[in-house]
C-alpha cells in the first residue's frame, strides 16, 4: 500500500461518515433537486 492509497482510504472513511450524516445528505439532495438543470448546463460549459 502506498501513501496515496492510504490517504484515499482515510478519505473514504470520512466520506462514509458524511454519507451517514442525515443533515448533510438532505442539504445536498435538496440543493441538487432545486437546481436540477444547472449541472447539465454547466457540463455544456466545460471546455
Amino acid at each position, binding site marked *: 500500500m502506498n501513501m*496515496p492509497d492510504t*490517504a*484515499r482510504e482515510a*478519505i*473514504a*472513511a*470520512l*466520506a*462514509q*461518515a*458524511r*454519507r*451517514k*450524516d*442525515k*443533515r*448533510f445528505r*438532505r*442539504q*445536498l*439532495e*435538496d*440543493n*441538487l433537486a*432545486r*437546481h436540477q*438543470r*444547472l*449541472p447539465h*448546463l*454547466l*457540463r*455544456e*460549459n*466545460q471546455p
Partner: protein
Amino acid sequence: MMTELDVAALAVIAGQVLGTGTDAALSQLDIPAAEAALAEARPAGPETVSAASRPHRPGSTPAAARPDRTAAAAAAVTLMHALLRHPPLPGHGQPVATAAGLQFLAVNGWQADLDVPRATAITIQGLASGQLPPADAASWLEARLSPDPASPDRATTTQTQLPPRSRARRIMLAPIAAIRHRHGSRPGPFTISLGSPGKPAGIRTPATGLMPFTDPALSTVILSGQQARRHGQPPGPEHILLGLAGQDDSVAVKALQRLGISQEAIRQQAENITGHSQPQAQPGQAPVTPQARRVWHAVLDEAVAHGDNYIGTEHFLLGLLCHRDTPVVHALASLGAEENEVRAAITAQRAGSGPEHPARRHGVHVR
C-alpha cells in the same frame, strides 16, 4: 465562524452531482488538486472550522452560528473559484464547484436560489474563465441567498438585509459588463417605472440602473395591471400572461404562434386562472403577489442571460416559465408551450425578426 468542507465532503458531493456515487468519485478524485483548492479557499486566521475537525455526531452536521449573508456569499464564491482553478475531478470542474458552493452555503445555514439556470451557468462560466471577478460573483450570489429554513440556528440570526447601496458597490459591479451581458447582478430590490415625461419606463435596480421596457413589454405591464384591477386581484403571473396575450407584434406572441398557439388560446387559459383566483386586492392598493415578484426577478435574470440591456416580452414569457408547478406554467404546458420549446421558438423568432427594441417614447403608452 464558518464551517468548511473537506476532501471527503467533496467526494460525496461529486459522486452525487455526477451520479456516479461516492466511491467512483473518490477513485477519480485528484486529491492534491482538492487539497490545493480547499487550502486556497481557507482564509487566514481562526475564522473557519473544519467540519471534519469537530466531534462527529452521527446523523447531524455540527451547527455553527450562521455567518452573515455577505461573508457567506464571499466565502462560497472563493471556494467555487478555487475549485474551478484546481478541479478535483478534471472535466467536471464547473458542476462540482457549483454543487460544492451550494453545499458550503447549506452547511453554513444559507440557501441559494439560482432559479434561472442559464443565467447561473453564464455567471459560473465567467468566474471560471476569469472574466467575472470573484467579488462581482459574490455580489451576484449574495442577492440570491436566503436563510435555510431548516437550519437549526435560524432563530439566532437577524433579519437578512442586502448591504446598503453605495458608490463603491456600484463601481464594484460595473466590470460585469465585460462578460457576455451588460448587467450582471440582480440585487433583491427593484422598482418598476411606467415612465413619465422625459423618463423612460423600465425596471431599475441599484446595480443595473434602468433596464427600459420595449413598447410591447410596457404595454404588457400596463395591461396586466388593468386586468388585475378588472378582476379585483393583486397583480399576479396570470395577469402578466393576459398582458402578453394582447401584444400582437411582440416576440413572445410570435414565438408562441410558431408553436401553433394563438393569442386567443393564451387569453382563454389566463382568464381561466383568474377565474379561479380569489379577489384579494384592497381598494386603492395593488400589492404584487409573491409569485409575481418571483416572476419579475426571473424576467430580469432572463434579460441578463440573453445579454440584453432592456426588458422585452420574451423575457416576460420566459420569466413566467421559470417556476415550475404554477397555474400559468400548467396552462402554457396544456397548450404545448413547455419551457424548452418556448426557448427554441424565441431564439428562432429573434433570429428571424430580430429582438424587440427599447421603447423610444417616454411615458405611459398603451396600445
